[in-house]
């Protein structure tokens, strides 16, 4: 259709006159120390800056920017704002450095050092201080304290299930309103006297079995409210000891970037989990952030080493992983650390370029259980006690690619407990996994259990647990991943001393619609169960090398047209201590022929044409992802 000249002229006039106004964006400055909410907020100086983020948000409209000066801002900060698709409201820290602009839910008097600490038992390093409200997270100078279920448990460092726990922790006596702490006596985290530390004591956690359901504003440091498209960008803050999440996204269309999550059970949380995407928080991006529960991993290593030396007993446990106190075995499930950087993920979330480290999980079932279209890419997941990324119970359309995964006990998990629908389609590709031989050997020596880099299976709970009544009459002999299934291709996994598979379903239950293609696995064995040949999993064009010793089932993993390298284990192990990019650059599998993976075309459009093996698709060099907050 041809537009007549008068209309064209009118359009030109409209664009010339109106668009400059439409594109206009205001900047509001907040300075908690010098500002005043009666100021205009239009300049960062003391005369003009506002005092609170809330007041700036009240004034801001689509396209506006709120810049927050360095300082400590008490949460919860509960905002009801919304931008527009092309004009988001940006809330940004004036400095993205760690601890520069802090939003905290820590109990104010304790954080300011205004509450005295009293020695209860000097020989134990046991101190106490008055605390009026319950807590689920405590940091001392940034170091996370393990919760214990009773004062006696804290005195003896024995967890709720009778196993030895980390050598520092806390107990809160709710009736007496008294907080007891024991800091680490070694000095590696500083003085054992809490008076010498910045003590951050968060509030109680959220609702539900794992405390991860939103039940009030103490749940978050920063809440973005309104179950609708919000179009908000949050940039550069340090979030500290909320009830659960640093940022709570009640609606959709939010970006959280360049932020630090300290003492947060999760970094970013959606509003709820559901199979119905109309009630979940959707299109949320979490990028270039740093999330940790330091020293969760170091506590695990310390316990393993103490046990190896015979200096702590292990309870007569049914479960060999006695160091899992932070899973919830320490002081109850409501305090579980099995969370990860996100919580209650809805549809089309992106988690990219983050540093996720020194935590129990990277992305756990509490995060992704009903997620749809989740993308996990370009992250560095390091020093995690359990899994880097889980897909249970019902994740749909998950893509995990381009991540660097270092010293994670069991990097990937497909372990539903909720019955059908099983997780799928799940695409795992172009990742590099690198674990130390010493880690897997230490775990194996102490617990008589060997980690596997892929944990998979549907246990009998899927049919028998009371929450799975819909499964009682369904067959149990085959577990078929829906959609494209579980497609694992072109990953490079250095996992010396460990296994490929941790099977969590009985051998007679077969996998169906699981494919492993073009992967490189350097591991000690296929599976801890000697009879396990991965029943039902399709393997082809993989490369296998034994480290540290040979076996016979590497050929199973290599599969059709696959390769089992005959090199000695010492050669492999030595090379695995190098920089990952260097290893990949000169890798002996570089020239091995790969195969197309048409079943992954929905995730990676070129999948059908893949012709190489290992990370770095089709000869493109694999690059270490850029991760963490950018200053």
């Amino acid at each position, binding site marked *: 259709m041809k537009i007549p000249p008068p209309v064209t002229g009118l359009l030109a006039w409209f664009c010339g006159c109106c668009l400059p106004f439409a594109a206009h964006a205001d900047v509001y400055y907040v300075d908690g120390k010098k500002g005043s909410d009666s100021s205009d907020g239009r300049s960062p100086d003391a005369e003009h800056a506002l005092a609170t983020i809330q007041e700036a948000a009240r004034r801001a409209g689509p396209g506006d920017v709120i810049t927050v000066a360095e300082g400590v801002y008490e949460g919860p900060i509960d905002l009801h704002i919304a931008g527009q698709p092309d004009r988001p409201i940006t809330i940004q820290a004036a400095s993205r450095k760690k601890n520069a602009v802090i939003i905290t839910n820590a109990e*104010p*008097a304790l954080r300011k050092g205004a509450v005295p600490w009293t020695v209860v038992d000097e020989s134990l390093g046991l101190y106490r201080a008055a605390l009026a*409200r319950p807590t689920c997270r405590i940091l001392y100078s940034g170091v996370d304290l393990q919760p214990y279920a009773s004062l006696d448990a804290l005195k003896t460092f024995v967890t709720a299930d009778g196993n030895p726990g980390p050598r520092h922790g806390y107990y809160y006596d709710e009736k007496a309103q008294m907080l007891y702490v024991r800091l680490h006596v070694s000095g590696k985290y500083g003085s054992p006297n809490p008076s010498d530390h910045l003590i951050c004591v968060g509030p109680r956690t959220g609702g539900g079995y794992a405390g991860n359901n939103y039940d*009030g504003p*103490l749940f978050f440091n920063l809440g973005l409210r309104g179950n609708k498209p919000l179009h908000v960008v949050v940039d550069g803050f340090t979030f500290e000891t909320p009830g659960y999440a640093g940022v709570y996204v009640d609606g959709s269309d939010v970006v959280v970037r360049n932020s630090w999550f300290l003492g947060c059970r999760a970094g970013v949380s959606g509003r709820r989990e559901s199979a119905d995407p109309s009630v979940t928080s959707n299109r949320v991006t979490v990028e270039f952030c740093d999330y940790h529960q330091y020293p969760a991993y170091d506590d695990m290593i310390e316990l393993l080493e103490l046990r190896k030396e015979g200096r702590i007993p292990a309870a007569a446990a049914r479960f060999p992983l006695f160091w899992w106190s932070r899973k919830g075995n320490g002081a109850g499930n409501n305090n579980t650390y099995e969370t990860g950087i996100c919580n209650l993920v809805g549809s089309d979330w992106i988690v990219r370029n983050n540093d996720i480290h020194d935590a129990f999980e990277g992305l756990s079932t509490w995060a992704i259980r009903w997620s749809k279209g989740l993308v996990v890419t370009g992250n560095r997941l390091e020093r995690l006690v359990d899994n880097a990324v889980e897909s249970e119970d019902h994740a749909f359309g998950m893509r995990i690619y381009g991540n660097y995964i270092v010293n994670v006990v069991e990097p990937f998990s497909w372990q539903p407990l909720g019955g059908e629908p099983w997780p799928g389609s799940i695409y795992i590709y172009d990742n590099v996994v690198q674990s130390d031989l010493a880690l897997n050997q230490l775990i194996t020596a102490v617990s008589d259990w060997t980690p596997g880099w892929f944990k998979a299976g549907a246990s009998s709970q899927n049919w028998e647990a009371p929450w799975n009544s819909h499964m009682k009459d369904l067959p149990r002999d085959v577990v078929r991943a829906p959609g494209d299934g579980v497609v694992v291709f072109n990953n490079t996994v250095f996992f010396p001393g460990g296994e490929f598979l941790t099977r969590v379903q009985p051998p007679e239950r077969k996998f169906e619609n699981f494919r492993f293609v073009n992967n490189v696995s350097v591991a000690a064995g296929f599976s801890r169960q000697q009879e396990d040949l991965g029943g039902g999993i399709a393997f082809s064009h993989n490369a296998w090398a034994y480290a540290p010793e040979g076996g016979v089932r590497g050929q199973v993993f290599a599969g059709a047209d696959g390769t089992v390298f005959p090199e000695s284990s010492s050669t492999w192990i030595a090379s695995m201590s190098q920089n990952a990019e260097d290893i990949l650059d000169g890798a002996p599998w570089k020239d091995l022929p790969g195969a197309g993976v048409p079943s992954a075309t929905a995730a990676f459009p070129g999948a059908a044409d893949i012709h190489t093996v290992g990370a770095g698709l089709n000869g493109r060099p694999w690059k270490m992802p850029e991760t963490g907050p950018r200053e």
Partner: protein
Amino acid sequence: MKRAISSFIVLPLLLIGFGSLQGATLLDDAVAYWDFEGNLDGTHSINLTDVSGTTAGMTPTVVPTFNPVSGIKAVNAGTQAVAFDGSNVLKTNAASLRIGGAQTLWLRVNLGSIPSGTVAFMTRSRPVNSQRGISLQMTNGHLQGYLSADGTTYNTQLTNSSSYALQASSWYDISMRFDPSNVLRIDLYDPVTGTLLDSMETTANVPASISTSNSIGSGYFQVGSINNGSSGSAYIVPDGTLIESAAVWNSYLSDADVRSLSAVPEPRSISMLMMGGASLAMILRMSRCR
């Protein structure tokens, strides 16, 4: 509250007591505010009556007891509180408290004990069909909120067994806010430290309005119990309970407003007092120059 301000300290107070004056403005905006400073009188002539809670129709009236209070550091702290002995309750039938839309209930309380079962703090309701309205309660130490749109059922039930468990002999500021079709929220503050102890809310089944029926339950507003019709009252606050002040607004107060009611002023520094004195001297000097 406690606004008797001597004229000779007006200026320093303007400088250093701004927070309390803000609180006064907020309380002035209330539909009713009771400071319980030796009487049950409320603002806007909405007065409460102390009655026997165990008698049908809640008569006869009883002579209220007021106890001195101390230790509360919040800006609007008073010097007296109305006392409860486990049998008396406060009531009014003021029509202006039959609010169907947005509203906020607030009180400052110190419980004599934490009994098993339920205690009602502020209610305009009766737990029977057609007479339900709004109720702020506590069960086994955990705060609860209830709303009814039609008087028949409690559409909105805000409960959380993992919420903060209230303790006996401690001061608490409790607010419950209703935003129609949106949220029912309870906030719990410590008026000794100004700390937010807990905050809970629900957005499930929040009605567009609350029943304002003049039936006996949803007509009477009560402090310290819930109407139980012919049986008098139920859920009476336990013996030894003190309520230092209470208020009702016909709006959903902001988070900052609720926080300001419990705010504890920073210790006044010598420099601020000096600044106040210097300002006074400057004004006196200017007035002499005229």
